[in-house]
């Protein structure tokens, strides 16, 4: 569940006021609007990356308004994937579990599971440089899902992909949602994506 209660966000000469919505647990919600209208800002506020001036933010019935991003148990997939150029794909998938000091065996198991599922097992020892757009996004999804977050925030993750990859990623998104039951907030300006 993602709930915004009368949230105000202010940034340099730009304000979003009294935003309220409620996305039930396990739902796949799409936030659509034209470029520059503040969609990403709302997503950043949900992630704790953008301070809010007023109101409350709830994730899974928990008031997270004052919590830092790392304490909100969510995953973020940005538009450009924002992969860590110095890490291998395997290190990306293991990252959130290492931060949580998970056992090595558990990390290996989860990395193998995600790599098989996202079809990136053959890329595990590669670094982001040279990966295709679709491969990069798969790694970003794996990195975000590794610690089994209850909420997944997607910031136009398909906008930079070609048509064929786009269709494949749409199928993958549906599969991720069906398999994990994670609550998704997907930001896009593309009507085609939202209708699917």
């Amino acid at each position, binding site marked *: 569940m993602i709930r915004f209660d009368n949230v105000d966000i202010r940034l340099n000469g730009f304000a979003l006021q009294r935003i309220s919505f409620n996305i039930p647990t396990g739902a796949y919600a799409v936030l659509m609007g034209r470029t520059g209208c503040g969609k990403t800002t709302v997503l950043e506020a949900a992630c704790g*990356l953008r301070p809010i001036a007023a109101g409350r933010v709830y994730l899974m019935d928990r008031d997270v308004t004052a919590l830092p*991003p*790392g304490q*909100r148990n969510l995953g973020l997939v*940005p538009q*450009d994937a*924002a992969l860590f150029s110095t890490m291998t794909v395997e290190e990306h998938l293991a*990252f959130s579990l290492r*931060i949580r000091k998970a056992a090595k065996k558990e990390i290996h198991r989860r990395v193998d599971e995600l790599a098989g599922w996202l079809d990136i097992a053959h890329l595990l020892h590669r670094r982001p440089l040279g990966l295709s757009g679709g491969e990069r996004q798969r790694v970003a999804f794996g990195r*975000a899902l590794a610690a089994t977050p209850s909420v997944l925030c997607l910031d136009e993750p398909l906008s930079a992909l070609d048509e064929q990859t786009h269709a494949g990623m749409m199928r993958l998104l549906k599969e991720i949602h069906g398999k994990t039951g994670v609550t998704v907030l997907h930001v896009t300006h593309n009507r085609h994506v939202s209708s699917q």
Partner: protein
Amino acid sequence: MNERPGTTRAAAALAEAPAKTAPQPAGRTGAGHGVPTYRPDVPFLIALGLIALVYVALIAGMLASLVFYVELPVVGEVFTNPRYRYAVLLSLTSCSITAVLSVWVAVPTAYLLTRVEFPGKRLLDAVLDIPIVLPPLVIGLALLMLFQTAPGRFVQGYVRFTYAVPGVVLAQFMVACAFAIRTMTAAFAEINPRQEQVAMTLGCSRAQAFWWVVLPEAQRGMVPAATIAWARAMGEFGPVLVFAGTTAFRTEVMPTSIFLELQVGNLGVAAGISIVMVTLAMAVLLLMRMARGRISV
């Protein structure tokens, strides 16, 4: 020449260029405003090249004249004469310490400047440029005066800076660090802030995101920052002269030796030490470039 553009010059250009580079005749085609006059790129590129060549020729000329002026035995003397050898060793040691210290200070300072909003940020940014614009002798004088104050004298009670080796390092550091900070600021600005934000959503605190994600990404900037700090420190003369003095076997670094030899009219030895300095600086530059290549692979 008052020829009209699009007529004589264009015709000449067309005559020179093969048909495929100028598919359309110059002038109006009858539709809209027509095709603009074709101007070949080569004269423009040659003009740019000539301007750059003047500077490159000056650099090459300077280095060549040093090499031709100096006699080989004099270069050997730089390594056999204990006084010069001490200056070479002190220069190398102090520059290396300065480079490490500069990067150590530049990384957190540049990170704050690029990633954190805080009151007085613009003032801090301006203050950090002061060592770059301040005359070098003034930096030396200001350091000398700083260590005459009560806090300065207190520090000197534990570590002697004025007219001592730590003073050489401090004088070099004051200027070199400002350049390292500018280099690191550019490096941090190139790193996508989203990476750090994603790391924070994955469970990292800000400090963890810095250590695990930002710092490894910034490695590519640390090598150039260290190089520029090292090179600046190697050439630093004014602040070292005023703050640390020119005592042989104590605070004499290579630029000081050149200055002292010039003062007594010993041009040959001054050129010999200069050659050694240039060679060392180029070797370090080469090593750093190789290291940077390895890091970015």
